[in-house]
């Protein structure tokens, strides 16, 4: 391959994007979406990145789908088990083949989906499709391999447990949810992880129910020929048998009162305050989430009045931030702050409450709103510069909605937001009765 070809960049089309213009589409690349007869959807996004392809297999199953008591953590466990190979390509053979490809591959698990990703040279597309389709259809692992992998998962839990934020998210999830599976974090309850080695048979059933073509979306981005790619996908995935079984997830009943909990963390930390409200599910047909994202930035971002007051002027907190994750079912809208002194926890908490009240009752400055729309859109586009960055930025949208089209809807919604819209979502979602508060305190000297 020639050097110049190799060094080309993928972002030519980005230069043509004008923020706030009349174009309907924000997403700068053309793409094709196809569905095989067995229900497998695949999305192809050609980019001018000679030689590089990112291949994301998005399983629309995450810890949300672990609805059976005592079985939390299995979606994440499969992120590990999936590397154990098949009869066609046993684990060591699979490892060697992937190693020879020099692919940049890994996997991660979230509340709503599990993502297996590889970036590799375009010549290797067919081999990757063959390997990936094989393990998704024919995963094979024995009990000893399964049990060894559960040990690695417990190691991961131990590693994460030293982090106060891991403890905080465990606690806030447990506090806020009574019925829904968002009550446990993605890695699962420790008691369930400890018990995993005895759940070999259950793991097989988990795989049979969820790893099915109707529940998987392939996102293939980069230096691809769409015709050839379609042929490859048809060839290697066409015989995959459907059979997805939806999880029986209980709907979370409405919360009828504020909840709070003080949590002791074994290590040292400054106090951490997490105020979380029940939010909406992310759907393409409502602009609530676009309004919430804007609200979060306006109220708690680096340019907000509260940030300037608490972080820069009074210096009472290390940081304050909003974290409004898009989720498949109604999730949590977090406002998180690390506070320098325990004496100021109540003060900061009240300021967060007051801030939200203000946004319920006062329209935001239209100029600030316009600046933020510009920032959000530029920020999104600037991150679409490589195949893996494009795929990474799309993965959650694809997992939640099943496609890429929702991206344009989302950013179009954002462009249309008015100060009144921001007030409406503030009133709708930041009610005292759906509020959950965790105060995490470190060990004393």
């Amino acid at each position, binding site marked *: 391959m020639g050097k110049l070809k190799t*060094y080309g960049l993928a972002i030519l089309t980005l230069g043509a994007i004008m923020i706030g213009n009349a174009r309907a589409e924000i997403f700068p690349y053309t793409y094709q979406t196809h569905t095989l007869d067995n229900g497998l959807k695949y999305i192809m996004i050609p980019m001018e990145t000679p030689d590089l392809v990112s291949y994301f297999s998005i399983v629309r199953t995450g810890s949300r789908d672990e609805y059976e008591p005592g079985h939390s953590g299995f979606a994440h466990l499969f992120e590990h088990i999936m590397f154990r190979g098949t009869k066609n390509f046993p684990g060591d053979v699979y490892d060697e083949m992937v190693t020879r490809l*020099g692919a940049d591959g890994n996997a991660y698990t979230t509340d709503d989906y599990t993502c297996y990703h590889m970036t590799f040279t375009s010549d290797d597309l067919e081999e990757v499709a063959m390997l990936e389709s094989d393990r998704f259809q024919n995963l094979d692992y024995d009990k*000893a391999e399964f049990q060894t992998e559960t040990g690695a998962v417990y190691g991961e839990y131990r590693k994460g447990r030293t982090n106060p934020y891991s403890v905080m998210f465990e606690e806030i999830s447990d506090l806020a949810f009574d019925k829904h599976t968002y009550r446990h974090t993605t890695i699962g309850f420790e008691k369930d992880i400890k018990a995993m080695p005895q759940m070999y048979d259950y793991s097989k059933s988990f795989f049979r129910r969820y790893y099915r073509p109707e529940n998987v979306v392939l996102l293939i981005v980069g230096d691809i020929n769409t015709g050839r790619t379609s042929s490859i996908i048809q060839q290697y995935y066409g015989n995959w048998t459907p059979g997805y079984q939806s999880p029986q997830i209980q709907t979370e009943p409405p919360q009828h009162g504020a909840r709070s909990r003080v949590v002791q963390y074994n290590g040292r930390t400054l106090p951490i305050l997490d105020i979380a409200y029940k939010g909406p599910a992310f759907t393409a047909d409502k602009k609530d989430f676009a309004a919430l994202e804007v609200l979060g930035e306006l109220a708690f971002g680096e340019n907000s009045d509260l940030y300037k007051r608490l972080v820069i002027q009074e*210096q009472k907190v290390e940081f304050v931030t909003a974290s409004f994750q898009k989720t498949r079912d109604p999730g949590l809208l977090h406002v998180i702050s690390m506070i320098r002194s325990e004496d100021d926890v109540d003060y900061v908490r009240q300021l967060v409450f007051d801030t939200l009240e203000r946004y319920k009752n006062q329209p935001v400055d239209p100029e600030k709103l316009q600046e933020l729309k510009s920032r959000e859109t530029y920020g999104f586009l600037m991150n679409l510069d490589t195949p893996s960055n494009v795929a990474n930025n799309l993965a959650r949208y694809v997992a939640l909605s099943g496609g890429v089209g929702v991206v344009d809807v989302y950013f179009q919604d954002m462009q249309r937001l008015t100060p009144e819209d921001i007030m409406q979502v503030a009133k709708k979602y930041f009610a005292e009765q759906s509020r959950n508060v965790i105060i995490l305190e470190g060990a004393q000297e």
Partner: protein
Amino acid sequence: MRQVGRLLVIGMVLLSMNVIARGGQSVSDKQTVLVPVQNDPTISFRIWFRAGSQNDPAGKEGLAFVTASMLTEGATTSRSYEEVLAALYPLAADYRSQTHVEQTIIAGRVHKDNLDKFYPLFTDAILHPAFEREDLDRIKSQTLNYLQNSLRYSSDEELGKAALYHFLYQGTPYGHEPYGTVQSIESIALEDVRAFYQRYYTEPNVVIGVGGGYQSSLVQRLQQDLGQLPDHTVQQPGPPQPRPIHGKQVLLVEKEANATAISIGFPIDILRGSREWYALALANSWFGEHRNSSSHLYQVIREDRGLNYGDYSYIERYPNGGSRTKPPQNVSLRRQLFEIWIRPVPNDTRHFVLRATVRELQRMVEHGLSEEDFEITRQFFSKYVLHYAPTTMARLGYALDDVFYHVDGSHLENLRTITPDLTREEVNRAIRKYLQFENMKIAIVTPDAESFKEALISDEPSPIQYSTPKSEEVLDEDKLIMEYPLHIKAADVRIVPVEEMFEE
């Protein structure tokens, strides 16, 4: 905090278009590194000052870090920090600092549409910092919180690695981490920051890096503007000469924890650029490629035995390994180390895992890579390096490091062209020349350190119990591992309570 580990750095491809421009006019006689990518709608800046923690005055460790933070997280003479944030906000752009041992980088990225508004903010931060007391108070508080809480208590593996670096380089300018110590940070005053800035933020001490879809006039303007910096030269300390290590010296950081983090290292006398370095890099890729299941150590400790989350090795410093998958840029050193990172293992397996790790190192040193391992790794590594720098910002970082290491051509290009050309003999020769298994420093974060010390000194067998079945092959090898002699002397084991780490 905005500084450590938050630069816009991800992955990679190869680089051909970097031009090291040394102009002859009055404003262009400083070094400028360019990575033009005309179809890139963004522009990346990396402004490199040859100043890092090695330049911290005694008792003021962390000063380089704090000074850089004051530039990027503080007021300028024309704008308060709040006004800076407000001006940057709609641009979807910002600038950040990264301070390591030998380098400080002020980096920023902006869409071309917003360049005219971004540029004066960016250069103002570098040229006209106000050094306000309230900004210093905030930055010091954040740094102290990191040292006293985050580093000591929230990530044992980062703590273990920081402890190793401190242990390895003590008594040299590399002997403290960029963020200093609790006492040194507390002692830093505005006059210290001003003095450091005046001494090191000079025109001869800067290398300008620009990448992306910029126009040449931008480079000239930047050269001209940074030409306003003082023109005195800076005397740099020589590369550190750590004291020779005799035997296995162990630092046990006593801390209540449900798992034990292990870091091992020793200095190596080789830097990127030479063919031998690429041979050693290939060997290291086989032994412990970062965050990759192809790593041999990963296979032995995690895959076969399920004892932890991962096990890796390095021939260059690799800060914030827990939060990145590809090598960082602009953390260059004139004296590198070989390092092994064992992610936390159950406490009752700590002795066994330490033995297994050193034993595998010995096996590699004595036997080298087999023909099969060499061939697979060569194939893997030749392609894997293509992922190191897919973005302009990352390629710009590599191009600056080429200047640091005086690389003939481009390191990224070398990785791509030399690696496939290496022979097994070259690789195994590099292993024998640069690696060894007898003299090393070991930092371990663990509870009940006294009993571990006794076990290490006695070299008593460390049998392992698994909660899950293991193959006969693994169990047979375990019998060898559990009795593998480490030969650690009592005088070479030191215990430090975690509360004392990074205190002074």
